[in-house]
């Protein structure tokens, strides 16, 4: 399966930097608080060193030092609370921005991309990757910062205790450096593969759930189980690989960061025995080095999460790479208002869903304003594809589709919608109220307009009964396919474009209902250019002109009577349709 792209490491770093710096004030406050909390935590060992050294000098001193320690602990707790709250608030803010920008990106994706990559991948990116990223942003990033700051501050404290005492710490540096390099070189790809395998797992479940009725009807439970098992096997293999990486890396780190404690103790102890440093200095240094253990551990612990978070961010940003969608480019064009500006020309257009497999071959077609054009032809002839090209949803691989002389690819999407709208045979009822499902087409429509639109498509009877504010969609009030189709047509009325592309928009309805609907629609279609893609030939019969498509090419163009008289493909179809009725 073609998957959506994943952003490169450089891109992820650049974006993370921009993200970090987007709210400088909040970030500065959070960092300052974390810094203060870390600094306060450093006073403990120093005071304890003093206690050990001065234990012989009297109860007063001991009590005083203890009180100072208590005061410091309370201060530290307050600082930690404020610091974490500040970073959590900032994290939630950044996260909300991230996922909202992501959805903004998703809704501007070219359709062809979404259909080929599969919704499972997109769903995983919107759910799990956003989840993982939330853990990174809320916990890993601030904690890594704190840990890094603590390490620096502790090293500073060590220098204050005795500059010589810093040396033992350096023992661990080459080991950690080499091990971390080895690990990071492999980890990113490993975790990306892990996420991708997980996406397949989710994808499989989504398919099973979506097609549960088919699974029951055809007893496909066994196959679905095989699919989940295959996905699990793949996911498990990727998990084992990253586990292998950790198995090599983590024990080396664990040993490496205790080394400084041991060397400080032995090195400092020997210096003390030689009388070159005080007991207090060695004690404080040992405790400081031991205190380093925790931030270094945290740093490395989060390194894992940051890697996974980075992988998720790469997947989230990767979607943006495909987002430069059809028709979004170019300078805003003056709104086309009428006359020739509404003529549509398809010039030598080819299109393919897969490279090397054109479904349209050099199609030429002129559509005049106000014309009623029917596109007919066998299934798979490229009718729907042509419809999508005319509506500007797909971009021609070759050739151009123009509106009033301007290529559609240069018309901003928002403007294009008010000119040309498409209703397809696949319908989708969105989660939300009936009103939400309609106002998406016209955010300013009031109750009266909504009712008028529903009446025009003959849907007011059931919609009025249901109520505009009833929740519809999966799991709520379920609409029948024909009701969904009426809803789609009502949306179209609300958009009010001068050109309509109806892609078998009434195919899900019974002939009786379709007939009633078509009568109501006739009033709506009045004065607009209508391109009706249909297999029911009566649509063609009523049209001004008929385009017959076959094998991705325009076979015949003309009025119904002309084409019937010509005795070509269309005449054959018409006779088959009409002949079937056995009566006239």
């Amino acid at each position, binding site marked *: 399966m073609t998957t959506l792209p994943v952003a490169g490491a450089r891109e992820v770093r650049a974006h993370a930097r921009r993200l970090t710096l987007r709210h400088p004030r909040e970030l500065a406050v959070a960092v300052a608080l974390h810094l203060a909390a870390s600094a306060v935590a450093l006073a403990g060992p120093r005071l304890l060193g003093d206690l050990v050294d001065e234990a012989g000098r009297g*109860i007063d001193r001991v009590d005083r030092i*203890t009180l100072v*320690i208590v005061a410091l*602990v*309370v201060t530290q707790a307050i600082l*930690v609370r404020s610091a974490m709250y500040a970073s959590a*608030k900032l994290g*939630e803010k950044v*996260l909300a921005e991230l996922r909202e920008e992501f*959805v903004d990106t*998703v*809704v501007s994706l070219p*359709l062809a991309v979404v*259909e080929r990559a599969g*919704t499972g991948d997109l769903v995983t990116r919107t*759910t799990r990757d956003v*989840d993982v990223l939330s853990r990174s942003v809320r916990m890993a990033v601030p904690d890594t910062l704190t840990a890094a700051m603590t390490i620096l501050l502790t090293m500073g404290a060590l220098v204050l205790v005795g500059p010589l005492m810093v040396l033992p710490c350096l023992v661990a540096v080459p080991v950690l450096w080499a091990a971390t390099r080895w690990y990071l070189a492999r980890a990113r790809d490993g975790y990306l593969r892990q996420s991708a395998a997980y996406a397949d797992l989710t994808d499989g479940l*989504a398919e*099973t759930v979506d*097609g*549960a009725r088919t699974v*029951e*009807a055809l*007893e*496909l439970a066994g196959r*679905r*189980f095989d*699919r989940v098992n295959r996905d699990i096997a793949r996911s*498990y293999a990727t998990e084992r690989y990253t*586990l292998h990486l950790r198995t090599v890396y*983590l024990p080396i780190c*664990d*040993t490496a960061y*205790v080394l400084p404690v*041991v060397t400080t*103790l*032995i090195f400092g*102890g020997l210096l003390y025995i030689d009388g070159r440093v005080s007991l207090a200095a060695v004690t404080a240094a040992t405790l400081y080095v*031991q*205190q380093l253990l925790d931030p270094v551990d945290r740093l490395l612990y989060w390194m894992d999460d940051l890697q996974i978070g980075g992988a998720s961010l790469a997947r989230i940003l990767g979607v943006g790479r495909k987002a430069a969608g059809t028709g979004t480019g170019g300078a805003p064009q003056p709104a086309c208002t009428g006359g020739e500006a509404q003529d549509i020309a398809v010039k030598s257009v080819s299109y393919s869903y897969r490279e090397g497999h054109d479904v349209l071959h050099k199609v030429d077609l002129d559509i005049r304003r106000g014309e009623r054009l029917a596109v007919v032809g066998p*299934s*798979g002839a490229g009718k*729907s594809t042509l419809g999508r090209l005319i*509506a500007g949803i797909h971009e021609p691989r070759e050739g151009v589709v123009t509106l009033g002389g301007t290529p559609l690819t240069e018309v901003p999407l928002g403007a294009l*919608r008010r000119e040309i709208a498409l209703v*397809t045979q696949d319908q989708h009822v969105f*989660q939300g109220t009936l009103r939400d499902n309609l106002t*998406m087409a016209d955010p300013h429509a009031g109750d009266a307009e909504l009712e008028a639109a529903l009446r025009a498509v003959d849907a007011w009877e059931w919609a009025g009964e249901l109520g505009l504010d009833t929740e519809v969609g999966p*799991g709520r009030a379920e609409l*029948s396919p*024909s009701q969904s189709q009426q809803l789609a047509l009502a949306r179209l009325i609300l*958009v009010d474009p001068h050109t309509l592309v109806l892609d078998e928009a009434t*195919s899900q309805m*019974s*002939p009786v209902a379709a007939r009633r609907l078509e009568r109501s629609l006739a009033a709506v279609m009045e004065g607009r250019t209508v391109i009706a893609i249909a*297999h029911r030939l009566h649509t063609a019969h009523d049209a001004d002109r008929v385009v017959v498509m076959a094998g991705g090419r325009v076979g015949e163009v003309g009025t119904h009577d002309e084409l019937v008289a010509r005795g070509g493909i269309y005449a054959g*179809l018409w006779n*088959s349709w009409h002949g*079937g*009725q056995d009566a006239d």
Partner: protein
Amino acid sequence: MRKFPDPGPVRLDHGSAGRYLAGLVKEHRRALLAGVVFGVACMLAQALVPAAIGRAIDLGMIARDRSGLLLWGGVVLGLAIVQAVTGILRDRNALSASLGAGYQTMQLVTGQASRLGATLGRRVTTGEVVGVGTADIASIGGALETTARGSGAVVSIVAVAVIMVSTSWRLGLAVLIGVPLMTWLIALLIRPLHGRQERLRDQQGELASRAVDIVGGLRVLRGIGGEDAFAARYRAESQRVRHAGVEVARVEVLLSAAQVLLPGLLVAFVVWLGAHAVLDQRISPGQLVAFYGYTVFLAGPIGWLTDAVDRITKGFVAARRVTRMLALEPEIVSGPLPPGSLSSPAPLTDAVTGLVVPPGRFTAVACAEAGEAAALADRLGRYTDSGAAYGDIPLRDLPLTEVRRSILVVGPEGRFFTGPLRAELDPRDTSADGGGDRPELAEALWAAAAGDIVDALPDGLDTVLVQAGRELSGGQHQRLRLVRALMANPDVLVAVEPASAVDAHTEDTIAARLARARAGRTTVVLTTSPIVLSRADRVVLVAGGRVAAEGTHAGLLGDTRYRHLVTRETS
């Protein structure tokens, strides 16, 4: 490590979240036990480090004994190595259990979705189930995983307490009372967190559901507009989730502060007591440093312990959602009769309309009212319970698998799955590779006039259908569904508008070939297309919820209601 996936779904009691988790624990007891053993060893090695450092100070430095210093320094290093090795062994075992639990849950949820079948869509949204497959299995895994570190934490706390008590009972007692007190106070803080986290999780699920909805309706959004309105609604909900997240964080940070404050106060108290003990010369300076080390160290295991409580809490929340899904029961249940009750061909009857479908014939039913065809198909295929009967046996008395195998309803709700087309078209082919290439497939493709679809695909029948065949047009879908139905070769085929999305010419071809392909078998087509109706042996008109007329297409054209329904004439 154990190998995954298991060949079959594991049997787990899903009566409650607790029992479900207990079942998983039992299932992974070996890995969990190993994880606990290594977790304990790891934490103990870590717990002994302060004692070894204390010895190095007392026996090495203060005694000015170089070899003592080196010996105890070496012990510290040895403990570090033990800790490193046992640490990764702990993690490996814990991960094995965690992944295993996740995968097994995934298998169960997949199995349950298949078992619920048509019921599923009426009870839960796709987003909810996908939520189970993503976030919830991670939470359940996390709960199991945490046992290794959690139990290591408990044991090391006990070990440190024992060492402390044997060194100084006063200091030891202070720690022994202090630590449980601390844990209890922290647990008090966690309690309000529980409910908030659950609510947050639900809101996040809703948000994810909305994102899934947007992805699913992207085609429509691109055609009609409304992306902005939708992104805006998502944004509004995202902001609600954000504020809920901040509210949860408000409680969470209190917990973090307590994790600093309580151990810190305990350390201060212990050090104060210890310093006095040094003054009284009851303990050595090295032991004081060790005590400091213990109490600082204790913040670690206590952190793990509270983390474990937190993760187990989250695991329960997730397990509750999983068990809720697993507890759903199909609305249609198997009848009491033994398998094999449905044998010889018999007429299929619908009690509501009075329709009788004779065996071995091609019957077409034209329904006058919108929605009647779908309802009738649901009754005949027993997707809803009714008085429908096969011969004189009511369908609801028959074993459900037998009904499904004998009566196949093919309609617009049929889906394809990602996979090679050859296997997708042959649901009954049980050979593992699905490459059996049965001769019937060519016949079925011919009958459904679907050969050109396959020819146009890059790898023919071996082409992998992406995303449920989204790339195919409505007419192509319809024909491939028919191919699949013919390959399933049921005793009774109920087809709802099988060729409504293809052109007239192809429709006629399909109707003629369908009749031939199903010769001698029972076929019911619910349609109002004159082309298909004219090919049927017998045509039934259902109007006003009852059978209104029967005959042939040509004969029935004399009936005004029928003519009005199936032709485009308006009177």
